[in-house]
């Protein structure tokens, strides 16, 4: 290899030395050495699965190498973590952006780049400045979840360029971008390199290597194929280095050459279009296996789903002369999904149940599953596909990946489909099982089943398929048949593609979100709806009975609201993280019981202080137990807080089996103190709510809290300690419940373990009314306060309207259901 770069004038910024990485026996990288120099754009080339992304994850500190050294600026870094990497000035732009979908663009930038936003400049203009650098057209207040892929990717790029990194790693950055954005990105990369930034640029496209890179390294099968100066190597040389990897699997012989041209057309697809693909037309003959090849994410998966009737599409599909709707296609086709765990297997069910599920119609007699016929069906399919398992009654998840995949295939076989559509049929499958699967696919094709396969493995496509369609950016760019179906032809065709994504239509309303729309999709729409409802209801009741707004009633209303408001705020803090706290009601009652032992008439100041301290301990302890059970012992939030719910009730009754311990008026007096008609505790609640609301919106802590509920994995990747955040949310929530308990203490005036329980359900009602999502990630404290206000007002108003308890329940039920239905529908349209 005489062409290798020999100019070592500049010391490398990052040196990866002899890196080997294995995943449970599979070697992803072996003995790779790479030097990244400042001021240089270093392209990393290789097929899908060549080990490029693994290498990037090691350089970014996300993965630890099994063997080898990492040297940064000449010094060895023994244990690189993501936060350490970013401290060293390494910025990684991943293929899958680490963004929090429920947060706005601006908030995402602030969570990721805390240091940049501390200098006091207005966050809005700062965010706009960062976005304009990469040419993103979204508004800083747009919710990230509502943006399209390209726009999200630009935000991720903006984050990387904002920190002016010493080393910038871009993992296929142009995949979702249109031509303009790509040009702008190239300019930015050149500019950065000119400033002395070292750039690692991963790509599949040769054209891009030519355009931007100085040096190129080729990887194949996790091994280094060589590093070259771009202007000293030809495309043909590069291609020969990329393809031609060893392949241990044996393929069945292909279909005999089609003798006469009149072979009947068994499938014809015309102008099939859908998300991420457009205008796909082709036809296939019986006996053929058709393969789709493309770089991952170019729309091949979506085309397959559309064919099988699972994904959305327009266009015509004719199978065996019958024009089929998507619904009909679902009946005729069996689909093998690419992500076995997510869509293929039914965990917890047995191998037998997994395999026979799609053929239940054939093995039933009078509505019951016939054990005998089920056994026969299993025997039939197992004679074709040997699934290795302790027994067919073993749970599916106990099998190896290859055997799980064989079970998925067995299920498809038993369904006796007219067409088999398989997306990545051998993903995560060992060599032996691969050969069996290839054999099976060929056999099916011979039997007349239409077989369509997509794979990101060109060698597999070459070995298996009679006809290959090369897909790029959602369109068929090349069709190869017969002897043309070679790995080299397939890869060349895909890598040489220079087309860009049809982003003009796909971008949709990325930048077009109007102010009104942002408001409706935002968290504050419920606040206005609720305010309106509260005022209207108040006016109606006042119209009927003027005593409704008299100071006495107003005070008692606001006292009740204070109790529920604090507890609902606590519930909100927990729900924001995607959890739920059922124990809030019993906790509120419990702190009253605790207080009733210390805050009674005639007790010393010391004991009063002790009482309050113990109440705080009880609340914080409850939060810790809840958080600990969830994060430590892996309880679901419902199970954990249900346990503490029952325990707190028991403890309450243990301390006081019957009501007792009258609270001193010197304690209840100040709590009940009013300014005019307004209780002081309500003012405290109001101020606290506003402060918490501002913190939730404006502080990094608030954003992190919402981030955890929005996407816990991305939050972790941003360097947040998610476990500690969740536990803190439960503790903080419980402390707010404590404040509600203090109000309750003054209202009740006596320790009573049976009180408080009802607050669990009413707090959830209040929070739901306020628009906080039970899925986590979005919500407002103000909304919860108003939700609580509406509930308290409703309960109170039935008294003034002379309505029975029936109406109280009716109103509550209807209001909750209508609110939840409206919110969920409004947000689903996003």
């Amino acid at each position, binding site marked *: 290899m005489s062409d290798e770069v020999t100019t070592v004038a500049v010391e490398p910024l990052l040196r990866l030395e002899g890196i080997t990485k294995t995943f449970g026996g599979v070697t992803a990288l072996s003995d790779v050495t790479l030097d990244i120099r400042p001021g240089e754009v270093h392209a990393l080339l290789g097929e899908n699965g060549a080990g490029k992304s693994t290498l990037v994850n090691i350089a970014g500190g996300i993965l630890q190498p099994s063997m080898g050294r990492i040297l940064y600026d000449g010094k060895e870094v023994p244990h690189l973590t993501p936060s350490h990497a970013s401290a060293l000035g390494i910025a990684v732009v991943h293929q899958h952006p680490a963004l929090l979908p429920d947060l706005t663009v601006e908030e995402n930038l602030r969570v990721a780049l805390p240091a940049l936003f501390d200098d006091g400049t207005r966050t809005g203009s700062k965010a706009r400045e960062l976005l304009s650098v990469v040419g993103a057209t979204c508004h800083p207040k747009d919710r990230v979840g509502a943006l399209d892929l390209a726009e999200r990717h630009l935000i991720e790029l903006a984050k990387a360029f904002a920190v002016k990194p010493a080393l910038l790693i871009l993992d296929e950055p142009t995949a979702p971008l249109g031509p303009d954005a790509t040009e702008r990105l190239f300019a930015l990369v050149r500019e950065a390199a000119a400033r002395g930034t070292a750039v690692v640029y991963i790509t599949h496209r040769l054209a891009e290597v030519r355009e931007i890179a100085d040096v190129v390294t080729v990887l194949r099968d996790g091994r280094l194929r060589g590093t070259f100066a771009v202007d000293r190597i030809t495309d043909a040389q590069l291609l020969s280095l990329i393809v031609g990897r060893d392949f241990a699997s044996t393929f069945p012989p292909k279909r005999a050459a089609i003798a006469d041209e009149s072979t009947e057309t068994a499938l014809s697809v015309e102008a099939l279009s859908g998300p991420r693909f457009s205008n796909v037309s082709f036809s296939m003959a019986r006996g053929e296996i058709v393969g789709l090849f493309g770089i991952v994410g170019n729309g091949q998966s979506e085309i397959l789903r559309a064919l099988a009737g699972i994904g959305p599409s327009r266009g015509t599909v004719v199978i065996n002369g019958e024009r089929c709707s998507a619904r009909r296609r*679902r*009946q005729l086709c069996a689909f093998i*999904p690419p992500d076995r765990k*997510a869509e*293929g*297997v*039914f*965990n*917890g*069910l047995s191998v037998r149940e997994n395999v026979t*599920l*799609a053929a*239940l*119609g054939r093995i039933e007699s009078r*509505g*019951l*599953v016939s054990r005998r016929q089920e056994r026969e069906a299993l*025997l039939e399919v*197992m004679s074709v596909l*040997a*699934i290795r*398992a*302790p*027994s*067919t009654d073993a749970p599916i998840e106990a099998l*190896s990946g290859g*055997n799980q995949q064989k079970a998925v295939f067995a299920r498809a076989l038993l*369904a006796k489909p007219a067409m088999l559509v398989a997306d990545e049929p051998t993903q995560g499958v060992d060599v032996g099982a691969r050969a069996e699967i290839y054999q099976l696919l060929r056999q099916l094709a011979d039997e007349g089943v239409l077989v369509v396969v997509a794979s990101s493995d060109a060698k597999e496509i070459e070995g298996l398929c009679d006809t290959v369609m090369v897909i790029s950016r959602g369109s068929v760019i090349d069709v190869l048949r017969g002897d043309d179906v070679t790995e080299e032809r397939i890869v060349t065709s895909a890598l040489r593609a220079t087309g860009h994504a049809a982003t003009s239509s796909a971008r949709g309303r990325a930048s077009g979100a109007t102010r009104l729309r942002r408001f409706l999709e935002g968290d504050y729409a419920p606040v206005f709806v609720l305010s309106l409802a509260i005022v209207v209801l108040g006016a109606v009741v006042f119209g009927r009975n003027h005593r409704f707004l008299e100071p006495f009633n107003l005070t008692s209303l606001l006292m009740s609201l204070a109790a529920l408001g604090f507890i609902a705020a606590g519930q909100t803090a927990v729900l924001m993280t995607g959890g*739920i706290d059922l124990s809030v009601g019993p906790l509120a009652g419990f702190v009253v019981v605790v207080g009733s032992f210390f805050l009674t008439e005639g007790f010393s100041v010391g004991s009063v202080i002790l009482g309050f301290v113990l109440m705080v301990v009880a609340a914080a302890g409850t939060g810790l137990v809840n958080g600990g059970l969830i994060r430590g*012992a*892996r309880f679901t939030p*419902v*199970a*954990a807080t*249900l*346990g503490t719910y*029952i*325990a707190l009730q*028991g*403890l309450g*009754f*243990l*301390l006081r089996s019957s009501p007792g311990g009258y609270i001193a008026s010197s304690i209840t007096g100040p709590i009940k103190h009013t300014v005019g008609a307004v209780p002081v505790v309500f003012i405290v609640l109001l101020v606290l709510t506003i402060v918490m609301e501002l913190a939730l919106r404006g502080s990094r802590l608030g954003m992190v809290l919402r981030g955890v509920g929005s996407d816990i994995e991305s939050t972790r990747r941003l360097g947040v300690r998610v476990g500690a955040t969740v536990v803190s949310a439960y503790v903080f929530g419980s402390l707010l419940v404590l404040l509600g308990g203090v109000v309750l203490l003054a209202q009740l005036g006596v320790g009573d373990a049976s009180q408080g329980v009802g607050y669990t*359900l009413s707090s*959830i*009602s209040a929070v*739901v009314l306020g628009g906080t999502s*039970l*899925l986590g990630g979005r919500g407002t404290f103000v909304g919860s306060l108003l939700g609580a206000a509406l509930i308290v007002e409703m309960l109170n108003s039935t008294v003034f309207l002379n309505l029975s308890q*029936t109406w*109280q*329940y*009716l109103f509550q*039920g209807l209001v*909750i*259901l209508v609110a*939840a*239905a409206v919110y*969920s*529908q409004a947000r689903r349209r996003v």
Partner: protein
Amino acid sequence: MAEEQLPLRAIRARVRASRGLTTMIIALAAVLLAGLLFAPSSVSWGALQGALPFAAVLAIVALGQTLVVMQGGIDLSVAGAISLGVVIVSHEAYGDNARLLPAIALALLAAVLAGVLNGILVALLRMNAIVATLGTNALLYAVVLGISGGTPRQTTSLMAHIAGGTLLGVPNSIYVAVVVLVVVTLIVKRTVSGRRFEAVGANPRAARIVNINVQRHVAMAYVGAQVLYWVGAVLLAGIINKPSAFQGDTYLLSSVAAVVLGGTSLLGGRGYLVESALAALFLTQLEQLVLALGASYAVQTLTQAVAFAVGVALYTIPWSELRALVRRRRTRSAET
């Protein structure tokens, strides 16, 4: 025996005890044994006769809750549903045996309507199960209070005779519970729809790919649950002399506790029906034991909380991983 080529005889279906079944049988045996040793009155014939009807009702209700939990949901409307069933049967019939049957039929109609409402909200409108059933619960209580005005009434002598009576010394309600358990188990475990139902709970996305109507199966869980609550409510109306309007409230927590103890995951998936019923029996008998020991309501509740937490931890904590970790630590410290 490691993984090996399947011998054909292994394809024959085998009945194997689930972890929940073993746990629940051991727990039940322990509670009975502890009763024999420390509080013989808790296992006396009279005490059992008094407790078993309530265990039967809880078992039936827990079966309903299991159906919903299998679909990854939770049914908070169980409280309102049982209260409504009890109130309709006792108020509509009001001591008149002739009006008993229409009253029971009316209660069934109400139950089906409630189930359909929950089903539409959760499956079609994709509302969160907690919110949807919370709302439905309030609506059900509105009807309860509309009918009863909050005042209890006595049921008819016939109902009391049926639900409270015994056959061959065993409370009738136990027979009902066993029949219900058998029927539900048959439907879920043996029928085609039951198989699909379980698959939808295990992985709705995969179920969609094999062309199963996910929404219909999820909705059916809520309807089926309400029908089971109805059976429990009708029994309860006969067992309790003067049922209150809020008779269902206690079943909210205890039904969820029984489901979780039985081993059905709150995240959905395989349902453990027999286990749920046994867990209901266990919880009731645990209560009896603690009562017979002279403990207060407080201790009784605390015992339940501990049993619940231990039960959940059995399933959630990866004990084998922990054991391996401890072993590795030990060998490492032995080396150094």
